[in-house]
């Protein structure tokens, strides 16, 4: 029982990382209807920015806020410069643009900040929480930030006119345009928010996995998996999906003898595909109904 609890808690801690990424993935999906493959690299870039600011002597929280704002601006800029001209191109052409962006950002952050692994400070400390070995302060802080972020997003999308306009623009661009919503800018805003969330996620993840240009790749895979598992149309579902992926991965590694350690990623993905067989639009997702 002790082992089970320990593994579940460890899974939750990993899951918080995946949940943050899954949340960013879903945000951009709601805004533009695509998965952004470059999301992880955008987030890594943000984390490097924060590292640079802190290295120059900026206090942590000031750097944090600055990076969130810069990430937001960067996300909007990428949408305006790169993806607006492509918005009539086929989905697959846009996919190539995502892959290109991935490649450019990955290579650029390696070039600017080189490939050596860097430590990243945590504002929460790393002491065990409540004197138990199950979870430390940083992990708890990470889960806390993700939950707060989710709360803010919920309020933003349900409670403000801008949030409503964004949902409308993503859901039905033509009708939204007819009622006076500037759909193009809503998309750019979606990119900005997703970039900012990705930046927050990366700054929380960096102390755990250490900062290097490829740090987000694995995380992004799990984040995608979590988002798809939870349902791409549901931010709350994505966060739960992220936590679920973390827990499944850990439990599979511990309890399935023989294959355990080596194949835990494979098993996690298999579980997800199996879930998708039963619920093809994710656990909390709405399945799209189209008019013929």
């Amino acid at each position, binding site marked *: 029982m002790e082992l089970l609890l320990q593994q579940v808690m460890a899974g939750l801690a990993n899951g918080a990382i995946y949940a943050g990424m899954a949340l960013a993935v879903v945000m951009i999906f709601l805004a533009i209807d695509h*998965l952004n493959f470059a999301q992880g690299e955008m987030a890594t870039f943000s984390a490097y920015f924060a590292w640079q600011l802190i290295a120059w002597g900026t206090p942590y929280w000031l750097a944090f806020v600055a990076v969130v704002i810069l990430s937001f601006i960067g996300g909007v800029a990428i949408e305006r410069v*790169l993806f607006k*001209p*492509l918005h009539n*191109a*086929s989905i*697959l*052409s846009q*996919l*190539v*643009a995502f*892959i*290109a*962006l*991935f*490649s*450019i950002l*990955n*290579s*650029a952050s*390696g*070039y600017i900040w080189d490939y050596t692994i860097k430590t990243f400070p945590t504002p929460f400390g790393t002491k065990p929480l409540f004197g138990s070995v199950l979870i430390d302060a940083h992990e708890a802080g990470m889960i806390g930030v993700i939950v707060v972020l989710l709360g803010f997003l919920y309020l933003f999308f349900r409670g403000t006119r801008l949030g409503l306009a964004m949902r409308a623009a993503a859901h039905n661009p033509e009708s939204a345009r007819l009622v006076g919503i500037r759909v193009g800018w809503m998309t750019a805003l979606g990119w900005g928010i997703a970039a900012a969330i990705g930046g927050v996620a990366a700054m929380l993840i960096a102390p755990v996995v250490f900062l290097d240009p490829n740090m987000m790749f694995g995380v992004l*895979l799990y984040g*995608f*998996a979590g988002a*798809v598992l939870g349902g*791409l149309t549901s931010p709350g579902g994505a966060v739960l999906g992220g936590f679920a992926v973390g827990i499944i991965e850990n439990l599979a590694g511990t309890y399935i003898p*023989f*294959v355990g350690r*080596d*194949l835990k*990623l*494979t098993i996690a*993905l*298999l579980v*997800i*595909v199996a879930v*998708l*067989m039963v619920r*093809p*639009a*994710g656990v909390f997702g709405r399945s799209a109904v189209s008019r*013929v």
Partner: protein
Amino acid sequence: MTTPQQDTVPFTPAAEAPTAPPATRPAIRHWMMAGALLVAVVPPFLFQGFVVFQLTQVMIYGLAILGLNLLTGFNGQFSVGHGAFYGLGAYVTAILMQRYGIAYYWTLPAAGGICFTVGCLFGLPALRLQGLYLALATFAAAVALPQLLKFHAFEGWTGGVQGIVVEQPNAPTFLHIDDDQWLYYFTMAVVLIMFVGAANLVKSRSGRAMMAIRDHQIAATSMGINAPLYKTLTFGVSALYTGVAGALGALAVQFVAPDSFSLFLSISFLVGLILGGIGSLPGCLFGGLFVLYVPNIAAEVSRGLAGAIYGVIMLLVIFVMPSGAAGFPRLVMARLSRLRNRNDQL
């Protein structure tokens, strides 16, 4: 397959005729193909071994991309996992040759058959999933394959992390060409047969059914096309093509190891497919060229920023040729004729 309702499929050649290009076009196309073949025969006598190897590799990638194209371009199903089928085909060849001593040319049908079977099995769950969800499922295959290949229980077969060294096929002595040249021609022959097969498949009734499902599955179903059957079979055939390419790849590289078949390979295929032109057969070869040469060119321009330059080139191609290399001539022609019309009006 001979149920009466199948006969109501309305995609007959006659129905296509109004939009088909004038009759001179096929003749031009045949001449162009003959010309391309002639050009393709020459390189082994002009270049050194390494260039011949690279060109062989271009054809192999082109074939793999053709497999993906049958699935994505003609049937509308996404796959981010075709590197897995490529890897499977490569390993089948390597294991049959090195563990069981089977001649290299017999391993190709075996690789194709095994990949076809696995592809069909994979196509079954894929029936439930669409778009991004299908992408995730195929993605799982791409991530899982290297791990399975490294897995210690299979090490007796797969050689684990070390992989397997594959002997290069020897050229028949009466031809007086070296092994690289022989492999080039062998690959060319296989690729040619496979391309002709694909061209015929796409033109056939089954090909039209595949495309009808891509364009509108509900409409296709209501016309009596058995969508699940065709989608599953397309997945199988697509895997077969990519698997045979993988088998040829193992012969060309003379080595297979788990990490050669990572997610990046799958993504490269996808990039090659899109930049070459979705739904175009010759475009696949352009895709092969891109996948092989552009990363090298990028690395030559700048070592440190190779990835960034690769990305920028990708973006340029997408901005200049939104419908891929295959659609480019048509795009240029359209632009030119529009320009001419405008001049006439002035």
